């Protein structure tokens, strides 16, 4: 158990928790924006117009090819260099993760919509449902069912990727952990394993309710 006391020294536990809050804040806001913009983007991506299709494709590929780290540099430093606009670290992080999340989300939504057979649309309309009613009662619930596992997957990927934001000066939970390990590296060289265990537990605490919520939602919309 050598080194575990480091977790309880000074304000360390509180600092880890506030680091966790930074992680949660950035990822939840980004995920929220990604869900909204990604759904809209997904609707656009199902367009049959070749120009719109091509634009969406290019956007998606560019976002995927460039590592998130490069995106963080481009937005945090690049925007300032280009326009003089000084974006904060967290704002930049949210922008980057939203650009990325919306693209991935859009592709997931597109896939989910295309997987719904045409006769589902036609029989909805034949029953006199309006287009909005058709989407709300028939199309979205079916799309969501296929979408939920993928969205959860994307969300956990986003949460884990937020660790990169320390490069643009934002101190999230993993960075706090590294600071604690480093501050005690001479007196408690074995603290690292305990700090990482604590962080692992904290990540689990966020991701677990997420997957529980996903399951509940799948049940609600899936039925089977």
């Amino acid at each position, binding site marked *: 158990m050598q080194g575990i006391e*480091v977790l309880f*020294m*000074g*304000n*360390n536990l509180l*600092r880890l928790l506030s680091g966790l809050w930074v992680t949660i804040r950035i990822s939840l806001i980004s995920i929220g924006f990604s869900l909204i*913009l990604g759904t*809209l*983007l997904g*609707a*656009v991506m199902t*367009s049959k117009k070749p120009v*719109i299709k091509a*634009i*969406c494709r*290019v*956007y998606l590929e*560019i*976002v995927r090819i*460039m590592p998130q780290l490069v*995106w963080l*540099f*481009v*937005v*945090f*430093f*690049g*925007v*300032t*260099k*280009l326009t*003089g606009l*000084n974006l904060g670290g967290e704002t930049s992080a949210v922008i980057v993760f939203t*650009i990325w999340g*919306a*693209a991935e989300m859009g592709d997931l939504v597109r896939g989910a919509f295309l997987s719904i057979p045409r006769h589902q649309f036609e029989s909805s309309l034949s029953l006199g449902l309006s*287009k909005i009613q058709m989407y709300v009662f028939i199309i979205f619930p079916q799309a969501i069912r296929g979408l939920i596992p993928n969205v959860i997957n994307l969300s956990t990927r986003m949460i884990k990727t937020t660790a990169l934001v*320390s*490069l*643009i*000066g934002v*101190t999230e939970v993993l*960075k706090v952990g*590294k*600071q*604690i*390990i*480093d*501050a*005690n*590296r*001479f*007196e408690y*060289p074995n603290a690292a394993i305990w700090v990482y265990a604590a962080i692992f537990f904290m990540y689990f605490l966020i991701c677990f309710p997420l997957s529980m919520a996903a399951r509940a939602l799948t049940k609600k919309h899936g039925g089977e």
Partner: protein
Amino acid sequence: MKIFKKIAAFFAASALAVTFAGCNNQQESGGNDGSDNSGNAAYKTVDQIKESGEVTIGVFSDKNPFGYVDNTGKYQGYDVYFAERIAQDLGVELKLVPVEAASRVEFLETAKVDIILANFTVTDERAQKVDFALPYMKVALGVVSPDSAIIKEAEELNGKTLIVVKGTTAETFFTENYPDVKLQKYDEYNEAYSALQDGRGDAFSTDNTEVLAWAKSNPGFTVGVETLGSTDAIAPAVTKGNETLLKWLNDEIAALADEQFFHKDYDETLAAVYGDDEAYKENLVVEGGKM
């Protein structure tokens, strides 16, 4: 749905625009020869810093004992001690920003910090992009070995096995200057130290600051060679072209020599790790910018 599609299309388009702008910008900064200030955001002059009442300094937050955050959440270390003095002598509040090795240059280029004080080694390549002030510390290679067979001269390593970390100055230095030394290479520092402890090599070499600190907390090992190879300067850096701040820092460093400020800094922050030994101190501390 039509209006939704329009909004979404707008977002897609604007994201694309940002992307292309970003790529374009990277090319620009890559081609920046450092002779002008065109690629850099507006830095703050000394007067502007004093006017704003705050100086922003980028430091490491996990490089004990140079820049780190202690268990109460307060910044500490050799660099931080100097940063506090800078703020005090400017007569302004100090705002510390945690930086990473990989983003130090960008923080200055975009003027998101006024000064970088993060164990920043002066190199020609970096000097193209930022302006270095006078050095306040120096670093060379060191060699640490077990007490049972202390290596005191680099020549003693001929025919023996030396542990190094890939991509470090030590690797290049021994490859070029001591071809008869067998190198055992590792990716990470902790792997290298484990190898030394397990006796897989006869000695380990990297920056002397690093091996000195490690030997202090690992009884049974001694740094037999404290300075080897060329000595590199560690200095504060400012945004390229920020002449008033550069001059102010140089004057400050020169003036602080009178009170042997960096020796005091060493005693306050490094002595706990490196000890009070005068020889160690002289291996690291630079006073008045004179190497």
